[in-house]
């Protein structure tokens, strides 16, 4: 996943209404009308949020022209979780290597002293 795509996913997740929509869709697909109900929002307002989620690849719409049920697409969420590991991976790996490297430097110092 490119960083631009990752940014798009973060931007889509930055809004609490959109996160609530995703939470609702996690329990199964539903129509725009069904999504709008708990949010006290108009259909068009919900549709606007859905378009952002669709562009971020987080939601897919069915082909049925009348109902077009919305479905959660979990792959980008998984990639966000993987990103969260990545900066840790960099530091964890570097610091584990530094432990060994410092030990190596200290043993070199000792050897120099004993010469």
């Amino acid at each position, binding site marked *: *996943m490119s*960083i631009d795509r*990752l*940014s798009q996913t*973060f*931007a889509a997740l930055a809004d609490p209404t959109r996160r609530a929509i995703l939470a609702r869709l996690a329990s199964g697909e539903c129509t725009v009308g069904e999504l709008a109900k708990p949010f006290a929002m108009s259909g068009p307002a919900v549709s606007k949020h859905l378009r952002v989620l669709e562009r971020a690849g987080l939601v897919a719409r069915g082909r049925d022209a009348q109902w077009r049920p919305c479905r959660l697409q979990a792959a980008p969420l998984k990639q966000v979780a*993987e*990103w969260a*590991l*990545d*900066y*840790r*991976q*960099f*530091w*964890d*790996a*570097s*610091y*584990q*290597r*530094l*432990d*060994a*490297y*410092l*030990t190596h*430097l*200290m043993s070199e*110092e000792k050897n120099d002293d004993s010469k």
Partner: protein
Amino acid sequence: MTTRSDAPAAATGHQTDYSMPNDRELVVARTFDAPRSLVWAAFTDPKHLPNWHTGPAGFTMPVCEIDLRPGGSWSYVWRNPQGREFGATGTYREVDPPKRMVQVTKSQSGEEQTNTTTFTEENGRTTVTVSMLFGSKQTRDQGMPYAKMGLEGSYASLDAYLASQV
């Protein structure tokens, strides 16, 4: 948010602490079983950094240039196992050996990022705290440049890599 890494600590290793005290900051803290002067050198001497500051296994650091003085610049380039390179450059704002240094770098979007690194010693152990202050929450959450390197890298076993270095 404060979490600890799941990486198994080596026999002499300590855990790395990650915290986000506010929207724009990421703080990484770690203790090493070595005196402060040596740890300072490992973080600031170009002959030392490429030996460890390389992230996931298989990455190398072909360029590490450091002009260690206030106003001096630094330039790092990492190379992933596929040969792709990722660079970072910046300047030192403060250099106070062996206690503290402040580095300023720019993200790809042109935002400034300030890294403040402090070294404290107790009973022969040194704790290094790197505080990264990003221009925005979004930039921090993108985790540049490490996220990009991690996403595009392929990970061989770290244990195998460390074993090959002994």
